[in-house]
């Protein structure tokens, strides 16, 4: 029989890994909100940011920098790399494809995915690199309440904290700043935004940069948990069902969707997977997304899709 303590532990573990999915999903949502591009490359951007960070950290430490300086410089270097990437993507891929339909843009981001994956590994190496920025040991909570207590990973708490800050600052950015308002205008209508004098290529650069920085944050948290390696891009595929469940255009949707997917798949794995063969974590999120699509195609928080004839 499974006790309440174990259930809570699974639930909390699931919610915490959900936070990580949300972090990647946020990058998708940012780009989709501002340019209507469904960015398949977000996982590759996480890989690139993570590799840039971990490799520059290693190098700086061997050069004799103190750790705190190395971390600051390393993060700065990775941010610069993401900015260059954002500029290149805007300049050479998304810019020329302006006014194309969503599918073409989507396929072009598949191309971008492959370029980024190849380039990132060619420049920074393709092994698995450990990254240690946050404590990864565990806490035991409520030990007097449940036998054995509830295991809680410190890293997950850090992840949740960072995600919270990120969402709050993104919300402020979108709602309060001039660029944020311009972003929303571009998302509504490219042409109208251009005609009132919003520089669209600059806006797109800002959007991809923001997505790149979100990818960097995701990479630091994920990299600490799993090491920076190629398989990070596959984990990023988990963000797709998160988006479908939460709604493509909603930042809170990405968070809630992440929680649902994270908790749902852990609970399903533990309580259902043991009966039908295990490893259902792998597809559970997708089947959940499929179910949501059939009932509510716009997701939980998405804007209703209205089509006129």
């Amino acid at each position, binding site marked *: 029989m499974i006790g309440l303590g174990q259930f809570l532990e699974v639930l909390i573990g699931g919610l915490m890994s959900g936070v990580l999915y949300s972090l990647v999903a946020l990058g998708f949502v940012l780009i989709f909100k501002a340019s209507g591009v469904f960015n398949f490359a977000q996982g590759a951007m996480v890989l690139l940011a993570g590799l840039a960070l971990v490799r520059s950290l290693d190098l700086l430490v061997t050069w004799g920098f103190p750790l705190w300086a190395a971390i600051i410089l390393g993060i700065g270097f990775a941010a610069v790399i993401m900015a260059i990437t954002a500029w290149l993507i805007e300049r050479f891929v998304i810019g020329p494809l302006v006014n194309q339909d969503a599918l073409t843009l*989507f*396929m*072009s981001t598949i191309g971008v995915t*492959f370029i*980024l994956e190849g380039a990132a590994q*060619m420049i920074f190496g393709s092994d698995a690199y450990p990254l240690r920025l946050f404590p990864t040991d565990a806490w035991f909570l409520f030990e007097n309440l449940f036998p054995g207590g509830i295991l809680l990973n410190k890293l997950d708490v850090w992840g949740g904290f960072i995600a919270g800050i990120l969402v709050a600052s993104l919300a402020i950015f979108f709602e309060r700043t001039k660029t944020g308002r311009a972003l929303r205008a571009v998302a509504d209508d490219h042409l109208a935004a251009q005609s009132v004098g919003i520089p669209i290529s600059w806006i797109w650069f800002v959007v991809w940069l923001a997505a790149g920085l979100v990818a960097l944050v995701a990479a630091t948290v994920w990299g600490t948990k799993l090491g920076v390696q190629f398989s990070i891009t596959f984990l990023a595929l988990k963000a797709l069902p998160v988006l*479908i469940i939460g709604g493509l255009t909603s930042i809170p949707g990405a968070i809630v969707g992440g929680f649902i997917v994270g908790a749902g798949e852990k609970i399903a794995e533990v309580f259902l997977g043991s009966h039908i063969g295990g490893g259902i974590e792998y597809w559970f999120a*997708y089947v959940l997304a499929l179910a949501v699509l059939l009932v509510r195609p716009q997701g939980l928080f998405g804007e209703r899709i209205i089509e006129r*004839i």
Partner: protein
Amino acid sequence: MLYREAGQFKATYAEDMAIFPIRQDRIALGILLGIAFIGVPLLVTFHIWPFASEYLLWAILLPFLILALAAIGANILVGYCGQISLGSGAFMAIGAYSAYKLGTGVHIPLVWLGFAISIPPLPVLSSILLGGLTAAVVGILFGIPSLRIKGLYLAVATLAAQFFFDWVFLRVPWFTNYAPSGSVNAPELNFFGLIVRTPIERYLLCLIFVTVFAVLAKNLVRGNLGRQWMAIRDMDIAAELIGIRPLYAKLTAFAVSSFIIGVAGALWAFVYLGSWEPLAFSIDRSLQLLFMVIIGGLGSIMGSFVGAAFILILPIMLNLIPSELGVPLSTETITHLEFIIFGSLICYLLIKEPHGFARLISIGKEKLRLWPFPY
């Protein structure tokens, strides 16, 4: 000069609507088929260059034929009907595994009903075709959401199929006949008493399949059904208004596409791999097929062949050319370069030539028709 159609008059409707209305095209195709069906086997039999070793046949021609077949299937869905699919690999797997189950005998014990469904092992040809049929049925099931959702959402739905079936074939032991390692062996390739064993026999077998299916697909997309698909792709609402049923058009596209992909999957497993595990049909395979379609040409049967050839040959070229030039690259670098080149090509083609290499070829033909006077 060589490619002028002056003097070729079309006197009947049948001539006007022929697949290859221009004589030079027919001759070129005839030569190509002649080389494929007669020339290659002759060269192989007498060990003449480039067929002195079996490398070319085994490592390039065989996978090329099978993947081209799968690319035709993917092209019908993505290129002709505009329903983007990231789950082609899953449908190949469904074709392969259901052909395997049918070829080795199906046994479903229905304990709670008190009896069992047993099908004796079927001949290879029928199990390959039935494998395709199973894939078609599953394709229809996963196509049903396409009636409510479109484009990107559908891509995620097909991705769901990919991940789900990856898991099913890995974890449900019934599909692998309880093989402890999870990898299975294809049954003997016995076609009406003819046993296909050597590479050249395998090649000819695949060639026959590909030729038949390519002709069928070409005729299908030219006909009523193909036009319905293209109308849905170009503008679904307008298509609905002129009386095309989206339900029927989309589901037939899913069915035909999955059928062809399923047959290709069965061939890939039976004829090329011989023994395989679910990894052979992972998401990488899906993306590879999608690339073939994009690079070769969306909405073109010939493009599927060109795309498949390009995607197979590029890695080999990357291996050969630098080492010939005296700058050998490490295998890792080659893999990464491959990634970068594929990615850049996709972006470049989407920007400059959305119809891929097939369109470039037809532009070339158009120019040859006028050459040497360009006006």
